[in-house]
């Protein structure tokens, strides 16, 4: 009899046939591991019935407040365009920041290739794109369009988001909390317009099984 089976038989004693129980008892009598396992089960049984003091409203409110204060969508809406010094002409680029969470396929280096990001299925992954502006731009319009099985965390079901923002001189980074809701993945279109200037780029989002 295997150790796991012997312990399970002893644990569920009363629902096991007599022969199985006898075999399990014989096994456990000579097995230090099984004796230790049964000792643990007995101790954990005590914890199962242990009452837990109800938590006060102040503690619950603290948890709510912290969640409201750190809401990621708020962060990216208000402060995503983080300026970095640079004087080059307006150009789009994709920045890889969240190392280890996602990467761009080598195919993205080919001309006209659509950059790819690989994100874990059903988990939020921060994907950052960067836009370089030669001068500060007030009230640039940002348009994010989602295609396929991709969503932004906090905006479930919304395929199209638009808002206005100010751009700093230099590189401005936009971090999007992307969630792949299906293995088929999808695409994220980011378009920034200011007067006659327009810049758009597309990201291919591929879903990978978590872990």
């Amino acid at each position: 009899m295997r150790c796991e089976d012997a312990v399970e038989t002893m644990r569920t004693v009363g629902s096991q046939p007599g022969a199985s129980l006898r075999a399990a008892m014989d096994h456990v009598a000579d097995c230090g591991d099984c004796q230790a396992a049964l000792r643990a089960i007995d101790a954990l049984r005590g914890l199962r019935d242990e009452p837990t003091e109800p938590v006060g409203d102040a503690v619950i409110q603290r948890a709510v407040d912290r969640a409201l204060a750190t809401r990621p969508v708020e962060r990216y809406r208000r402060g995503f365009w983080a300026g970095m010094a640079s004087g080059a002409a307006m150009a789009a680029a994709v920045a890889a920041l969240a190392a280890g969470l996602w990467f761009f396929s080598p195919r993205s280096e080919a001309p006209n290739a659509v950059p790819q990001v690989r994100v874990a299925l059903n988990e939020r992954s921060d994907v950052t794109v960067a836009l370089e502006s030669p001068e500060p731009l007030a009230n640039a319009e940002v348009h994010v369009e989602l295609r396929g099985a991709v969503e932004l965390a906090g905006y479930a079901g919304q395929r199209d988001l638009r808002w206005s923002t100010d751009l700093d001189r230099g590189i401005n980074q936009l971090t999007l909390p992307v969630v792949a809701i299906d293995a088929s993945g999808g695409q994220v279109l980011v378009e920034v317009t200011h007067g006659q200037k327009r810049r758009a780029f597309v990201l291919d989002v591929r879903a990978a099984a978590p872990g």
Partner: protein
Amino acid sequence: MGKPTVDPGGESEQVRFAALIQLHYQVLYRAAYRLTRSEVDAEDLVQEVCVRAYPRLDEVERLEHPRGWLLRVLYRLFVDLRRRYERKNVRAIDENEEFVSGEPGPPEEAERALDRWRIEDAWRHMNPEQRLLLVLHDIEGYSLAEIQSLTGLKEGTIKSRLHRARVRLGRLLQRDQVVTSMLEDPRGS
């Protein structure tokens, strides 16, 4: 062309979120406490769950069993944030923890307190994955199939890891018992 603006999340969303958390907090906290054996860490862990849940409020509200989703997030976070809840050299003292006065109490109370101390001490030597399996199976009473869906581990892997976790906890408890006996009677008689 009209330019729709993004709803930044008004008061109603915050109220809905607060109501959701109010409804499930006690259950989440109890699960977190069973995993961490610390009021401070349990509160911290549930706060992390709230931080993850708020941006996905719409989705969570649409779920038939939001509590199951919240618990799943809690269990995953506990393992993902394992370093935060690993054994600490200095034990965090919970705000409401009572110190042992040193005065002799009723023998059964003293024995219960000692048992609890032994378990909590042993618990801190278990890694988060082991704690999670023990809590899910031996305390919360989840079946192997349910644990499989929660953790993504194969049933055979769960069985063998669960057994190893039990053996480790049992040996730690035995060690503490021996040490306690020696302290009570240094001659070992």
